């Protein structure tokens, strides 16, 4: 089963498997440290369809849910 970042619970850690969507989105996410094989933690989500906040390398990034749905992840078991 393919999971996306949206399927992660708050505080859950995962490894990025792939980024779907266009080349530009991939580049923009990569610039913020989000690319395949990186560890990513879902920090919180704004109410009413607002942005998702994640942490990569100890740094926080926010993006919309559409973007989150394009990030395929594999949850890491602690």
């Amino acid at each position, binding site marked *: 089963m393919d999971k996306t970042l949206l399927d992660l619970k708050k505080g859950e850690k995962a490894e990025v498997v792939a980024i779907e969507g266009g080349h*530009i989105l991939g*580049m*923009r*996410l*990569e*610039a*913020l*440290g989000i*690319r395949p094989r990186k560890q990513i933690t879902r*920090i*919180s*989500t*704004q*109410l*009413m*369809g*607002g*942005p998702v*906040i994640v942490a990569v*390398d*100890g*740094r*926080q*990034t*926010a*993006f*919309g*849910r*559409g*973007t989150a749905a394009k990030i395929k992840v594999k949850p890491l078991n602690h």
Partner: protein
Amino acid sequence: MRILLMGNPNVGKSAIFSRLTGTHVVAANYSGTTVEFTCGKLKLPDKTVELIDVPGANTLAPTNKAEEVAVKMVADGDIIVNVVDATNLERNLKLTLQLLQTGKPMLVVLNMWDEALEHGMDIDVAALEQRLGVPVVTTCALSGEGIKTLAGKIEQARPGSVRFEDEDLWSVIGGIVEHVQKIRHRHPSVGQSLSHATVHPVIGPFIGVLVLLLSFSFVAYIGEWLVEDVMEAAFNFAWLPVTHWISTLMGGEGFIHSVFIGELIEGEIDFELSFGLLTTGLFIPLAVVLPFVFCFYFVLSLLEDIGYLPRLGVLVDTIMHRIGLHGLSIVPMMLGLGCNVPGAMAGRILETRKERFIAITLLSICVPCMAQLAMVVGLLGPAGVVGFVGVFGTLFLLWILLGVLMKRFIKGETPEILVDMPPYRFPYWKGLAKKVYMRMRGFIREALPYVLLGVLIVNLLYALGVIGFVSNIFSPIVTTLFGLPQEAVGALIVGFLRKDVAVGMLAPLGLNVRQLIVASVVLVVYFPCIATFVVLFKELGAKDLIKSTLIMIVVALSVGGSLNLLLRTMGL
């Protein structure tokens, strides 16, 4: 010789630029503060060279406008100074390696070195130098540490020695990072906990409202205190006797007297009402507007340097999507409250034409600048709460309504927000003071000549009878539609030049509450001042500017007219 300062967004290029050249450019703690390149002179021991602050780029394969500018500039540089965020080495090295591949002489600056140490990151500078094959220096641009070493080493820049194939980029970077960086375990810092709280889905919005309330109260109360108890008092004490003496010298009347001193109100000079160059012309910008401009830029600069604005953008993202924008468009809106000119320029951080059009049009119609706000607040004083709610409530509703309409009818896409949230930083007070000073100096330089010109033109137009003539032509609109006295036409004419002077011209007309509200709203929405108009042309292009202007005119006529009717039926 031309030296390029290049690096990812928000790594401190502008702060280093200011340090190296002594010319100050605005830096802030979020990506995209610099949207256009800035040139400066850098004195090296034996010669003076040109230093260029290039907008931030994450990659040499451009994904946005700022990156396009950056990539085009690489070819014209002789030396590249690559600024790297030491707390974020891995992410930054991609651009570093791409820049090294160009074969240009280069030097790497590990900026925010102090912060990296604080976060428990040990970077072996010598090992990094050896791996990249170029000199590496460490700096803390905010405090100035390491800047002298950097200046001394610029001429040692050389082409790097690292060679790799494009597809191996990340494994090469991984190898370098593993070799040179050690991260000691650390507990989450206060800044990180605060960062979590400020974007928490429930606590975050509360903090957001609190921050905005505190900010606006600070501007309102401290601004008012500075105007009334400091500047007005100073003008009355020091300047009134001088103008009085000049007035007597000029005989108290006549054309020259009315240009310089203006009209005497009950035989006395009144700084607010006389409307001469030396009286109202100096009093409005320096005593009424400047204190508010100061307070506003102090608060804005503080929020910028702490790093709160991107978080605010995340909090308002859902609301902004209703009006066809995403959360980051709060940045141009906030800057626009200071002055519409930098606000419109900050529109460049938005990705699509649709967003830029909506943001800039909303900004120029519904967001009054601080100069205008200060004057409107003064004018509305007698109208009390009704006046404030009438003016600012109307503007806010209009902002939402126009946004919703433009979201529907303007073609194009509104992408989702995608933003790095920089760590919270303690403001560096000296840097903050300099930034506020620069913005105030900018205001005085830009505004004062226009204000004086405005006052001069008012006097000339009255003396030549032009205002009377134009008033007659437009009086149906102004008197019938807006319900204002015919003399208000003069204010609308001057409003093209400066809105603060225009609001000042309403003061002597003795307007009632309804007229005060209608006149204030119409003056905000009907047209941006000339300086903003020029920037709108640059940012939007001729075609979109005409569209935007038509929207303004239609909005001004319909809102002014319906507000007049509505307030009349309410019995005002």
